[in-house]
């Protein structure tokens, strides 16, 4: 039995379907990320787990208990909000104590627990401040402390790093991950940032238009995308279908190959075993520091993106200019086949 089990969750707002038959198991102690573009339903699913929304159909169980229709205050889950939602009229201490207060923890004990939680996020010096006297990163930490002090079974995080600048964001990613690992609490994290998702998660759930496209470890979803959407959404990908796929890649399915798995070689290059080389013309070459990004057209008219790492100093690499005749080379094992789109084949229970 998984810690959190979603079964056939559906939710519509007017004519908009926000969640369409979402079924998902979340294991105890894992860091799972709901990833998708805005409006893909990831936040709705999070709000359904938190209890802020009731699903139109389906069930949510926590530790085997059906909590689908329980109000938020009766659920053993806590949320870190995107805008932190700290109570503006309460000090940092009172904010962190709030959940203990509603649980009728004795005053001395809750003050002690709150102090420990605040110390855990290194903000002891700000304990008497009001939220508007804190920086964005500090507010973020207090929001985390406020939720963590209750030792919930599950912590829900709704794009908690969205408002921070890049550097702070990366620091907080590491911090969140450390806190999660040390406390052993299940984190359900919502983001639209695929890099953030891959960096932090044990597993990623990819959402699109209210449906779950794929669930897997960062490596699985990147290397073996289950759908065309996943292949395009996570990193860049060359996706080739139909007749061209057969001609160039020798496959009947839709295939995907990552730009970094393609190499460019001079026309004189002779392919090794397992390698495939296709003649092409360089259309564009863009030097971006660590890599050079090429766009090439094969003779069959397939346009490929290629990312070539600049491992050598200038003049020692194979670097090409627009108009150069080249060979696009890849290894057969780097091709990922994308199964036929599943959503058109069956309507219900497809991801179980």
């Amino acid at each position: 039995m998984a810690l959190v089990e979603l079964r056939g969750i559906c939710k519509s707002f007017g004519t908009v379907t926000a969640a369409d038959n979402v079924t998902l198991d979340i294991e105890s102690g894992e860091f799972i990320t709901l990833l998708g573009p805005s409006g893909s339903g990831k936040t709705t699913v999070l709000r359904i787990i938190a209890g802020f929304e009731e699903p139109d159909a389906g069930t949510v169980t926590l530790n085997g208990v059906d909590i689908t229709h329980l109000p938020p205050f009766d659920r053993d889950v806590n949320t870190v909000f995107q805008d932190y939602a700290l109570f503006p009229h309460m000090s940092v201490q009172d904010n962190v104590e709030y959940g203990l207060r509603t649980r009728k923890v004795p005053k001395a004990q809750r003050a002690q627990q709150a102090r420990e939680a605040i110390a855990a996020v290194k903000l002891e010096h700000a304990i008497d401040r009001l939220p508007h006297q804190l920086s964005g990163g500090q507010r973020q930490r207090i929001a985390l402390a406020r939720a963590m002090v209750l030792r919930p079974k599950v912590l829900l995080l709704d794009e908690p790093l969205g408002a921070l600048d890049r550097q702070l964001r990366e620091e907080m990613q590491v911090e969140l991950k450390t806190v999660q690992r040390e406390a052993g609490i299940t984190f359900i994290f919502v983001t639209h940032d695929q890099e953030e998702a891959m960096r932090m998660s044990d597993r990623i759930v990819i959402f699109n238009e209210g449906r779950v496209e794929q669930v897997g470890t960062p490596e699985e979803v990147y290397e073996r995308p289950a759908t065309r959407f996943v292949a395009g959404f996570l990193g860049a990908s060359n996706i080739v279908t139909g007749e061209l796929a057969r001609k160039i890649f020798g496959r009947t399915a839709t295939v995907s190959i990552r730009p970094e798995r393609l190499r460019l070689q001079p026309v004189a290059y002779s392919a090794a075993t397992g390698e495939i080389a296709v003649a092409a013309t360089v259309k564009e070459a863009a030097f971006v520091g660590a890599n050079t990004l090429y766009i090439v057209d094969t003779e069959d008219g397939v346009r490929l993106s290629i990312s070539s790492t600049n491992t050598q100093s200038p003049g020692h690499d194979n670097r090409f200019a627009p108009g150069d005749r080249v060979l696009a080379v890849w290894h057969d094992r780097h091709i990922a086949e994308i199964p036929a789109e599943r959503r058109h084949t069956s309507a219900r229970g497809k991801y179980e």
Partner: protein
Amino acid sequence: MLRLSRGARLALMAIVGLILLFMYVPLFVLILNSFNESQISGWPIKNFSTKWWAFARNYQPIRDALLNSVLVATGAMIFASILGTLVAFAMKGFNFFGRGTVNILVVLPIALPGVVTGVAFSNTYSNFLTPAGFNIGYFGMIVAHATFCIVMVFNNVFARLRRMNPNLQEASADLGAGLWQTFRLVTFPQFRTSFAAGALLAFALSFDEVVVTIFTAPPGIDTLPLWILKEVGRPNQASVVNVVATVVILLSLIPVYISQRLTRAQEHER
């Protein structure tokens, strides 16, 4: 920043000065006249004296009128505070059929001429309630005042609720607080300053109301403004009226001052 020429600035200052002069000179004359020894107001004042202040302090009709005013204003304020807040919450939280109409109905009484409100209430009380054996009397005056006071509280609270972060209530529920706890610990503190400012304005509005009061005050009962209105008709009491008017001016400064302070405090809180 808009830059004005020297001439324009001087002209504007002169206009503002004139307007302030017209607004406040009469009040100033009235205050001075409350210290006039003579029974009749006049200018220039020949002899200054606090005789009328001493007289007013122990004059029973004035005390009764003041007590009535405070009672009515307090009652109207309490009704307006509760109802205005409830309407504000309904308008903020729900999108129901007739929402726009309710909004207009709440705001309308402040725009209606007092004469109309007064006649309407007077007719209802004397032609329907009294014949039906229900003598509303003093309470009717409070209800009539409350109708146009509601909007004061409603406007203040509604404006504040609209700017409130809805996530705060969700965060509170998420942290285990029930509905009443969330209201007490999170929601109310968010709008309490607007609530207090609205209630004070409601009090002030009711305290100096004349027109509706004329129609709804039970026989023999005077509020302070009503008493002043009656006494002004008798020239030999003019100086006592000035004393009372001065007191009213000073009293009405208090709620205005507090409500401004509250509004400012609220801006800092955000």
